[in-house]
């Protein structure tokens, strides 16, 4: 899919991250639909007040009417969504394993691979790209800037499908951020909790520098030792 074809953005998850991304997408001129874990009624007032203009809806409607879908729910809950729902969709994985909401890692994730690989395996008919996961939600909210602004921050975008990654990178750019792009979903680990990039809000050269020398970071060496 080409970026020009993206008009409708769907967000699954009406928590802090989902709402911030909904606000950015509205500002970027997209039509935005967003759903929580329950009924529309449960989130209607929240959406109306926090992101006026976004359409509060339910998962099925959000997915059916969106050109791109963002997963912004706690990682431990993604299996509450039926895999078939995202069949054929371009999906952004904004999730991470996070002890404080997800509990013990082994109960949520198979230790042998990364979270996004497991999310992709579960939603096997979807094309998954990981981004929006490493910058704090308030940095996302406050630091979206136009292209060319010297203070503009960058996000890491990675996935296995070349075209999908490029489309998502353009989408991220339209939302107010530069990008550093990889074409390997497993590289998502570089921006997970524990990484020097997690919670960091960096300009493109700084982000790229750490990504390029990831194997020299303490976290990178730990990951390398585990996968050896």
């Amino acid at each position: 899919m080409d970026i020009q074809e993206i008009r409708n953005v769907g967000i699954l998850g009406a928590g802090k991250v989902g709402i911030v991304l909904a606000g950015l997408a509205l500002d970027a001129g997209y039509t935005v639909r967003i759903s929580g874990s329950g009924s529309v009624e449960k989130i209607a007032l929240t959406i109306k007040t926090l992101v006026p203009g976004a359409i509060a809806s339910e998962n099925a409607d959000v997915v059916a009417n969106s050109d791109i879908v963002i997963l912004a729910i706690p990682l431990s809950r993604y299996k509450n969504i039926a895999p078939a729902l995202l069949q054929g969709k371009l999906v952004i994985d904004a999730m991470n394993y996070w002890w404080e909401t997800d509990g013990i890692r082994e109960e949520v994730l198979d230790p042998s691979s990364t979270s996004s690989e497991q999310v992709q395996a579960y939603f096997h008919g979807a094309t998954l790209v990981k981004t929006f996961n490493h910058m704090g939600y308030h940095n996302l909210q406050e630091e979206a800037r136009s292209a060319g602004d010297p203070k503009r921050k960058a996000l890491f975008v990675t996935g296995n499908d070349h075209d999908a990654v490029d489309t998502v990178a353009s989408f991220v750019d339209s939302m107010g951020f530069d990008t550093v792009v990889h074409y390997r979903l497993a590289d998502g680990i570089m921006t997970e909790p524990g990484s020097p990039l997690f919670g960091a809000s960096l300009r493109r050269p700084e982000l790229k520098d750490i990504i390029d020398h990831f194997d020299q970071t303490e976290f990178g060496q730990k990951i390398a030792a585990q996968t050896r």
Partner: protein
Amino acid sequence: MVDIDHLEFGLETFGDIVANEDGSLQTAAQSIRQIVKEGQLADELGVSVFGVGEHHRPDYSVSSPETVLGALASVTDQIKLAIAVTVLSSDDPVRVYERFATLDALSSGRAQVMLGRGSFTESFPLFGYDLTDYDDLFNEKLALYDLLRREKPVTWSGKFRASLKDQDVYPKTDHGRLETYIGIGGSPESIIRSVKVGYKVIIAIIGGQAMRFKPYIDLYHAAAQQLHRPEYPIAVHSHGFIADDEDEAVEVAFKNIKANFDRIGLTRGWAPMSREQFDGETKVGSFYVGTPEHVAQRIARTIAQLDLGRFDLVYGAGNQTAAQREHMIELYGTQVIPRVKEILAETAVAK
């Protein structure tokens, strides 16, 4: 419009370990005694609320804040005594009620309950709870606490605790109801939950611009009106450090707040704080650091922007010396609080 006459100003500490002048650290026991001294000082200076956090970690001294506040109850006169916050999800609401009702007795009605999760999670495994049940635990225990707070016999059953049938819980308080807040970090769900139970709300703003919480405060008021629930002025809490000299304040705060955030970041997986980030927080963000005048200007601005009823400054982050901590409290009580009120009154007149 901010009601200047009824504005409350609090001080809160998480119970960080205090440093000696030579840089060595005091013991946890010494640090706890220091908190009692500081609570007394805050009381003498007319600060409205003194809050102590509950933590179960080596870098904080207080795991049983009610005990510390119990000591303070008998040496203070006017200050409200709060726990910032009581981790309700991993506690027993009956015990929470009993402890606070006792504190309320000792302090002649100055106990204040703040229920929340706090920024940490170690109490969950420590007391045998599963973090993934967090929401269910909090909802269930909040419902039980709300019944107990009415101080009438309670009949209740739930998933995480033995049922109660026509059970009275003691002691009853003199005023018939414990003042109770819910401490939240800004998730819309927790705002709606607080509105439904009808408690006051204190928001932890620990990073970024305070204004980003405006929509959440709007949500609180909109939800209260829609659901016909009581509406109170919002309280917030943020970190800060005050000294006579701006550069000194910034350097002490950078060293200590950064050390504190970075150490927590190590276990929670976020990256160390950069100088740029820190400077952003002290200039336009959520660290209230500097001279009394600078800090007063920034607090006044936040109170006005968010239309607050209460502002709590979290003090003592990292390993500060007793002298630094006490002097900061003194400056907060004698200079910052009166100056904030003055600035707000001037702005009101100008309008």
